[in-house]
């Protein structure tokens, strides 16, 4: 009996008893077994398992094992000793796109509690195609998907993502045993293949697992790689090892349950080894705190503390704990509780993280958060460079290009991740020659610029590599001009606010030191000889920075 029906029955009973007594406001004992009430309100475990093996369009190569994959996954999930899922719906025999969409909608109707665990497993071909707007998107191939009409007949991964996000549950796992590389469990239309042949992989749209709001998305292969089936295993390779983790109860932290990340870490490592490094399953988790997505077993005790990361920017980093290398990221390790020295480095590169962390039983710590939190947030950077007005007239009459010096202080990660608050001060002084109607007069000038900017920090190679800075800047500009003439005003000056831009680059030199250069471009109005001049003021500055 569903919870809704049970609730209705209880309400009806209450109403009937109340009516029979003829009195209002009395408490009426209700003979409802406690276990039934508890069961009705207990979180449920629901799975949708899809295997598409054959396709109407003969141009899609028939796959060998999706139905076997689906059956094996469903069996493991149903098994009371393994997954103990309450409901497992299997769509095999070649579901159409409409059937897939319908199944996802029905799934949304069945999950009503945030504590429900939902697993969606899909094993089929993947492909790429341009949609009506010309954007290259990723699709899952249904039975009736046509090679020459993928956008109209395929299932866009973004739709799957959206359906997944609509699920009320906070414990969700999406497992994609498919790929979009054009090889293995994938086929690309000729025009897309021809287009991709001439471009680099950076053109690919960001993988779903990088943008999904779903709690955990597990993919059999990294984006652009091939997901493989294997005759000896009789399954999709990744699926085989994922099932292995569930069946063997590979409970890393000893809490009694196999979580999604524990199962994936095992499947990822074994798939990588089995394929000789040609297939690297990926995962993305937006989860913060304890991993509540249990796929097999039951949490019986607080597990050993774990360190983990599935953040792309930490891929390839080696995790060392107390000096011993324990894991290559992405992945996780379980540790004894207590205080540990945690280090992250890539190859022989500098330590990205070197921190002492105290871990308690049951605690799971995302290394990416640890890096963000432990990262040196402040940087102070002396600067030297050139400051100048940007138009020739102001350079001649007010302040020409001249050497200057300054100081910048940067607070990284504020007001949001990826942003920085940067305060800067720069000054210059020089001299010029003013020309008026055939007469000339020398003058000295001083310019002081104080600004605040919010640059985005774009680090193509991760937080340890060079970074580009770009963002808006608001500055206060003070200009002073003093003629070396007895009849000139003793010191004329002008103060104004100037909106502008900051563009820069920062290159870590190791340790706390980095090398940086910035171009500041401000637009301002300067009142010169009674005339308001619209002009630009620029500064090109560089130097080293020290983080703390």
């Amino acid at each position, binding site marked *: 009996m569903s919870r809704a029906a049970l609730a209705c029955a209880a309400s009806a009973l209450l109403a009937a008893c109340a009516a029979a007594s003829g009195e209002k406001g009395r408490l009426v004992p209700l003979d409802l077994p406690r276990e039934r009430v508890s069961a009705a309100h207990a979180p449920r475990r629901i799975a949708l398992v899809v295997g598409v093996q054959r396709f109407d369009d003969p141009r899609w190569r028939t796959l060998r094992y999706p139905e076997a994959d689906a059956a094996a996954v469903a069996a493991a999930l149903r098994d009371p000793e393994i997954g103990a899922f309450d409901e497992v719906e299997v769509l095999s025999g070649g579901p159409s796109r409409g059937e897939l969409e319908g199944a996802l909608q029905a799934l949304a109707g069945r999950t009503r509690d945030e504590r429900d665990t939902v697993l969606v497993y899909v094993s089929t071909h993947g492909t790429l195609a341009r949609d009506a707007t010309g954007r290259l998107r990723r699709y899952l191939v249904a039975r009736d998907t046509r090679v020459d009409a993928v956008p109209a007949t395929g299932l866009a991964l973004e739709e799957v993502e959206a359906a997944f996000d609509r699920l009320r549950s906070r414990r969700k796992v999406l497992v994609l045993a498919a790929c979009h590389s054009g090889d293995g469990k994938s086929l690309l239309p000729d025009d897309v293949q021809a287009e991709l042949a001439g471009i680099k992989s950076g053109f690919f749209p960001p993988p779903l697992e990088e943008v999904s709001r779903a709690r955990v998305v597990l993919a059999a292969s990294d984006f652009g790689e091939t997901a493989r089936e294997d005759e000896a295993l009789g399954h999709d390779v990744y699926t085989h090892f994922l099932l292995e983790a569930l069946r063997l109860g590979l409970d890393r932290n000893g809490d009694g349950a196999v979580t999604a990340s524990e199962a994936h870490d095992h499947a990822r490592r074994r798939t990588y080894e089995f394929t000789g490094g040609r297939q690297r399953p990926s995962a993305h988790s937006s989860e913060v705190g304890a991993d509540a997505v249990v796929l097999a077993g039951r949490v019986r005790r607080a597990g050993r503390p774990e360190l983990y990361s599935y953040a792309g920017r930490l891929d390839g980093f080696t995790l060392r704990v107390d000096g011993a290398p324990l894991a290559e990221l992405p992945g996780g390790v379980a540790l004894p509780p207590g205080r540990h020295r945690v280090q992250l480095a890539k190859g022989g590169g500098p330590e990205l993280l070197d921190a002492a962390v105290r871990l308690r039983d049951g605690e799971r710590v995302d290394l990416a958060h640890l890096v963000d939190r432990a990262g040196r947030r402040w940087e102070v950077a002396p600067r030297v460079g050139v400051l100048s007005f940007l138009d020739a007239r102001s350079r001649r009459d007010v302040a020409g290009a001249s050497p200057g010096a300054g100081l910048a202080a940067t607070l990284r990660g504020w007001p949001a991740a990826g942003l920085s608050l940067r305060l800067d001060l720069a000054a210059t002084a020089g001299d010029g020659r003013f020309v*008026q109607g055939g*007469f000339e*007069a020398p003058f000295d000038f001083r310019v002081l610029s104080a600004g605040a900017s919010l640059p985005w920090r774009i680090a193509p190679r991760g937080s340890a590599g060079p970074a580009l800075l770009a963002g808006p800047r608001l500055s206060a500009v003070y200009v002073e001009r003093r003629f070396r*003439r007895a009849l*000139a005003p003793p010191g*004329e000056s002008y103060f104004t*606010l100037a909106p502008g831009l900051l563009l820069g680059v920062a290159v870590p030199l190791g340790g706390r030191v980095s090398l940086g250069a910035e171009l500041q471009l401000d*637009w301002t109005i300067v009142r*010169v000889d009674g005339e308001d001049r619209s002009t630009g003021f620029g500064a090109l500055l560089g130097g080293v920075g020290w983080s703390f």
Partner: protein
Amino acid sequence: MRASFLAVAASAALAAACGGLEAPDLSTGAIAGRISDAHPGGRVYVLGRPDLGASLAADGSFYVDGVPVGPAQLVALDGAERAGLLAAEVRSAEVSWVGGPSPALPQAAEGVLPLAGFVTARAVEPGGAAHLGARFTVVGTDQVDVAAGAGGEVVLGPLPPGSFELLVEADGRGDGRAPVEVRSGETVLAEVTLVPSAP
């Protein structure tokens, strides 16, 4: 949209701005100095620009600004019986110093001006008869449009010693010009014959 954004940004920048950069007038300069033993009523002015002048302070100092850049001569009147020409080189937006105890007084080793000179001017018609209603100007000085007295004569001065041009105008009877040499401590007579103006 873009124009309105720029207008708002410009207004904000202007609203937050203060001050301004004003260049000095580089085409003019100033002359300053001091006349020794000056008396009340003394004054100086630029020869050729009698409107550019200043009264002497009690200590004889003066300051004249707005003087065009280049060589200039000041007519200095001590307020009593002395007058002189002071030479100065006016520099762009600078103050040139003349007079005082040491510099620039041409013939005043003691720092005093020479005695002033005067001109008694008279207009004569082509026939030789004196003209009674003429007006006299010593060009470049403050002796401008001075009307003749009852006898047709006028005394112009005090003037610094030097060479000047005397200009005579007689309404309806023409005008005339004549050079005049002003000598220190003397009154010279200048008689100018009127030239009828063309009909």
